């Protein structure tokens, strides 16, 4: 089954509020100032050793919105997230995150992004509290110990604060990684399979921090198509070759259509 042709490439035009707008300064002065998109890309491309992994990705995400990124393994979802997190340079196209053009102005966005990737980014030979304190101090979080205690209590790890990170289970580690991700109250959350290793209770504990009610824009990479489309205001469906099959309002993409990008393997 093909994604409905009428919905493909919907809203692929670059939003007026992004860096790639071409209107003159005088035209802009006559219009009311629109809030700048939190994330905006235009014709984004990323190659690995001359092999394209992402191609022609144009998207936009406003403050308070969630972008659901769907696609089969190897479609470039994690690569997209790492580019938005300033960890990878784009091979082509334009990217703006929190008003900063990447990669040139990456330093402006750093510290304002919460990135939850496949790696928890917690030093295994530190205790949980020490590992989080390390990140909190790098991000100049005020009242570090109180913030860590608050977050650990929220995800049910309050009693594990003095335990070495290496001794935590995979689910506990994921909850700890969520704490690390939101320690500095980021404006943008980049979440790569945030539910990995979490049981239903674990998912519930992190929901307030990184779920739909989180006080930040979110880019959510997941294979849970129905949940992603229900939580997202925007959706990006990537094909296996890294080319977008759909970009637009999440309401415009039916879960059954979204599943077709997995090539019938779902």
């Amino acid at each position, binding site marked *: 089954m093909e994604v409905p042709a009428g919905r493909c490439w919907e809203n692929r035009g670059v939003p007026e509020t992004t860096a790639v707008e071409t209107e003159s300064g005088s035209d802009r002065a006559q219009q009311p100032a629109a809030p700048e998109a939190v994330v905006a890309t235009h014709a984004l491309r990323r190659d690995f050793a001359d092999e394209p992994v992402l191609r022609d990705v144009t998207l936009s995400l406003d403050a308070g919105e969630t972008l659901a990124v769907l696609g089969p393994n190897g479609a470039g979802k994690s690569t997209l997230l790492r580019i938005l*997190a300033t960890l990878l340079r784009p091979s082509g196209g334009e990217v703006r995150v929190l008003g900063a053009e990447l990669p040139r102005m990456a330093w402006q966005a*750093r510290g304002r992004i919460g990135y939850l990737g496949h790696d928890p*980014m917690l030093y*295994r030979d530190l205790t949980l509290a020490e590992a989080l304190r390390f*990140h909190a101090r*790098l991000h100049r979080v005020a009242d570090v110990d109180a913030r860590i205690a608050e977050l650990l209590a929220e995800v049910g790890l309050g009693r594990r604060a003095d335990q070495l990170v290496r001794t935590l289970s995979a689910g506990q580690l994921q909850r700890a990684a969520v704490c690390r991700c939101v320690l500095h109250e980021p404006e943008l959350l980049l979440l790569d399979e945030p539910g990995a290793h979490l049981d239903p209770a674990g998912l519930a504990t992190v929901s307030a921090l990184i779920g739909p009610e989180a006080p930040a824009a979110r880019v959510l990479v997941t294979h849970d198509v129905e949940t992603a489309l229900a939580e997202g205001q925007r959706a990006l469906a990537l094909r296996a070759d890294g080319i977008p099959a759909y970009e637009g309002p999440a309401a415009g993409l039916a879960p059954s259509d979204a599943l077709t990008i997995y090539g019938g393997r779902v």
Partner: protein
Amino acid sequence: MNAFKVMLAKDLRVELRTLQSLPAMALFAVTTFVIFRFGLDRTSLEGSLAAGVLLVTVLFAALLAINRLFVAERDEGGFDAIRLAPVDPSSLYLAKVAALVVYLLALEAVALPVFAVFFLDGAEGMAPLAGILLLLDLGLAATGALVSTIGANSRARDLLTPLVLLPLLVPLMIAAAGAAEPLLAAGGPAYDEVGKWAGTLALYDLTFLLVGYAVYDFLLED
């Protein structure tokens, strides 16, 4: 400065807790002295031979720590964590240099007395020799942290680090040997040309510290 202190404190805390580098370095140094003692069949060394035995031992013990310097950053997401934070990435370089200098000083606190007991007739030249070793440590750390970062992001890191590092360290080792030789001379330390070689060591240290600080931002980029 805050980031530098945070990263240095983390490294020292992890090393004190796990003792992954220091005991191996100390054991390597002591074992090497034993091998030299029986291999050379000498109970006393002086001049260039004494300097060579001491400095080569410190160099290869340092390689053990340099190879492990970025293991946690590579395997536990440390590089990404630092690039996500609003800090100057060069802070990581300076913190690693400082950590390596601390490891080398700890190593020498063990190795130098053992070296003196095994090979020296007196301890007259030890104080100025400690100063030369400090300059050597700074050069080893400045160059080692730089090359180790490059190696950490390479698949052939175990080969790459020593292969790139050792040629870069040749001028440092020549200068350190030039400075240490008169301090370990037979009949007591002499100070001929020590100043010249110490100046060369300081210049090498400064050059690599500046190069490392200047290029480190680019090394951490993908």
